């Protein structure tokens, strides 16, 4: 059968084996944060599906941190607008296990300006779930800033902190913490307009925040793939697997 015929063949209309195959995110239902930025995660995932090859589950699940259902979702989003009470010990244990198993927890501080209660809560709960692993500033050459778009800093709806923080587990960053209300830049109202204005940067800042969000989803699925690409040429050349061709029938003199 000729290739031309194959190229003309029609792919089945079904897009994935199962919806779960698609990349999605679940919102952690802690202190009312899950409803603080309505439609923001949906918008981020929709933008991801339109701009990249990733197929997404646009609707996020909303889960308690103590729910075993966490393990259906390798990407969790925790949005906060203020101080939250300490999590139940079972939830802390489960969250720690979820991170160690391979999940990526994205924490977004959507507090109003001057609000430090959520930040303190985050640091307290992370210290309980992942003891001995404090949040650290992510450097500008972290894969998060180049996993799809090339970015120079941590964008969001506001500019509270120029850098992201994170916690590494093994070779990957398992917790990413933004204090710039990243998801606040994505939410749309029922009329299609943006729910919240972005501060200082206008549309460009909103676009850059979207890129930051897409990079986050890309990092969750590809990990350090982009960092490895820097080494591909070296790895390819490491193995000297060809020599000058010698035709056994040709005499060389």
């Amino acid at each position, binding site marked *: 059968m000729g290739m031309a015929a194959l190229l003309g063949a029609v792919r089945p209309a079904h897009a994935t084996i199962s919806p779960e195959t698609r990349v999605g995110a679940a919102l952690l239902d802690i202190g009312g944060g899950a409803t603080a930025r309505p439609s923001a995660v949906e918008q981020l995932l929709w933008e991801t599906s339109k701009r990249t090859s990733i197929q997404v589950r646009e609707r996020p699940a909303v889960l308690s941190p103590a729910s075993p259902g966490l393990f259906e979702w390798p990407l969790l989003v925790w949005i906060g607008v203020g101080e939250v009470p300490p999590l139940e010990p079972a939830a802390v244990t489960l969250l720690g296990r979820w991170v160690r198993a391979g999940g990526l927890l994205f924490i977004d501080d959507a507090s109003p300006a001057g609000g430090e209660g959520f930040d303190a809560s985050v640091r307290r709960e992370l210290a309980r779930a992942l003891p001995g692993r404090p949040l650290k500033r992510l450097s500008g050459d972290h894969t998060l800033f180049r996993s*799809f778009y090339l970015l120079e800093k941590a964008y969001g709806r506001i500019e509270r902190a120029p850098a992201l923080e994170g916690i590494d587990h093994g070779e990957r960053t398992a917790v990413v913490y933004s204090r710039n209300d990243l998801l606040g830049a994505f939410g749309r109202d029922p009329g299609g307009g943006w729910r919240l204005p972005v501060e200082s940067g206008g549309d460009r800042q909103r676009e850059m925040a979207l890129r930051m969000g897409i990079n986050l989803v890309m990092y969750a699925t590809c990990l350090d793939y982009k960092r490895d690409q820097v080494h591909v040429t070296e790895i390819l050349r490491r193995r000297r697997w060809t*020599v000058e061709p010698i035709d056994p029938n040709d005499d060389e003199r």
Partner: protein
Amino acid sequence: MDDAAATGTEITRWVLLSDWSPGTLGLVVTLCIAVVALAAWNVRALSRPRRAALLALRVLTVLVLLALFLQPGRRTENVSRVRNHVVVLVDDSRSMGLPGERSASRLEEARAAIEAQGGTRSAWASDHIFDFYGVSERARPVQGPDELKPEGDASRLLVGLSEIGQRYNSEALAAVLVYSDGADNGALGSAVTRGELGAVRDVVGRLGAPVHTFFTGPDAPPRDVAITQVRYDEFAFVHNAVSIEAEITVTGGDAATLPVTLRRDDVVLARRVLEARRGETTYPFVFEFVPDKTGKAVFTLEVGGLPDERITDNNRRQFVVRVIRDKIRALQVVGRPSWDERFLRQLLKRNPNVDLISFFILRTAESLTLASQEELSLIPFPTDELFRQQLGSFDVIFFQNFDWSAYDMEPYLEGILEFVRRGGGFVMTGGDRSFASGLYANTPIAQFLPVQLRTPASAAEALDTGDFRPRLTEAGRNHPITRLSLARDENEALWAGLPPLRGLNLVSGVTQGSAVLLEHPDLKRGGAPAPVVVAGGLGSGRVLAVLTDSSWHWDFKAAADGGDNRHYYRFYGNAMRWLMKDPALEPVRVEADRDRYPLGAEATFQVRVLGTDYQPAKGARVRLEVTRQVFATAGTAPEAQPVSEQAFEVTDETNEQGELVVRWRPPGDGGYAVKVFTSVGGVDVRDEDVFVVSADPVELRQIEARRDTLEALSAQSGGRFNALGAGWDALERNAPRVSRVHRRSDDPLWAGAPWLVLAVLLPTLEWLLRRRWGLA
């Protein structure tokens, strides 16, 4: 070593009979000098004749007194003397069978030269015992040179001399006489070549006797082509270029054109031409090739011979190279990022034995472009580099939900088919862009996939979206890929306890010879349960089909109940070992206990058979066959293809441990292959190992006579280098040792009256003259 003794020998010699201590002697001599010096000072004012006369009298007086003090005398002794040994070391290596200066054999000439020294031997018989040794790889005592034959496989003169040094203490040796052509291929030859003679000096220094060498010649090199050196690594890495360096010497001939051939087993890897030029003897060659499979292989390097060449054994060298795997180089090609890709990538990255190269399609033609190229971190998908230029460097390729048709892959699919056929591993995992829904039906890829594909008319025909817990098949219970535990029951329980999967790529069936390892518990296709994991292959390659994109559940979801990802890692780890043909997973193995045997040694072959359950197969009937690679004409016709002939065959059964041990003595040198054939679960299986039996003609790699080695040997020991016919009369040697004095008599010279008269007269005369000439 027993020494023979001669008794009753009379020895007369001068001695000092006094018994003064060295300190006293020194004091007296100093005093004598002072007395003479004082006398010289006193007579300085006299005329020259008078001064000379007085000074002479003073010196004579002092000498007479000194003689009286020292008491010289002649001592006569009747003693026993122990004869010491003259060791005659004759090189009997194979090169000594080559023509010398005059006769057909260097050894014959050496024999004749030794025979000619019969007169000297008789004359020395009272002082020395003659011991004869042959020396090739080591020194061996013989009755005489007539016993020797030029059959030694190496010339190691320094080893021989070292052994002589251990046999005799230094007092027992008078001298060592070495008859050789100097073509030493041991430490002496290389030390002289390098100009580093420290080791030579040490060995001959310990002898305590001079080493006199006799050079058989000839000075003109023989007519010969020899592979003098082959440098190679006994271990090579598959898919990595290997270098074999060879040095070929051509001596004693005119200009010639000679073919040089390198073979791996029966396959010619390279042919070259050696253009031998007059005045040039050494020709280096470098061969490079890339092994494409693991295991051992016999390599044969061969060079054509000169007309009338006497020795052709050194025109061929055989050796075994064991090709092993370094890191597994895996290529992961992903059609779109997904959780399945994310967890498999992490697994591969964590494996220290895997060099992972990933390429993900991050954006498709349908994706919106809202940024300039400079704002994106994307690179073009390097199809040509991956699937043509570098394809052969990979060990295994993963196609993970990858849509070949969207990326101009058509020209490369045949290459991937060939890659698998030649032994590459291939894994396709499920997804909406895999298998039938990836439009792989009727492509070259479909030719090696272990499942049958049909271009689907609808999604329902290609994909099932339901949840299911896959079930181990009978093949899966025994297959190494699906062995999460060695215990059969536990293995089944582990599979049953894994998180369920979601979604399945549907196929028409599986190809003949493939094995379904996991199947859908309910869903049927064509009357049979839908396959989930299928293992198969084409040619030398192995292929695994994982017909779901949710195997990551076995990793991430397994942690939900406090479990871990070890079973996910075990499954894919097993798969990698199976894809790479890990020998430990092969049902039958045979191994020779050595890669290279000296001629005449016994070889031991160990056979191990595993049953379908990968447990040792007791009582398995095994046929073992050994074939020998035979060359039509030794060394002279490298163009002629060698033939394999059966050398040995036996059929036997394995023991309780599933093992069979066979011992056999190969009849001659050459490359051998030991093959075993058996049946496991009704399927014929086989394995093969190779080895080389070598007469190890290291001796024949260097047959040109070398006078420089013998010159160095003599020079370092204080001996003399001689032409072959030189006599022994003038050779320096250690005197025999005195072991016992039977009688002794002393004849003192100082005790006579003349000495006393002189002792009085001389000073008196000096005193008289001094008075006359005005001195006090």
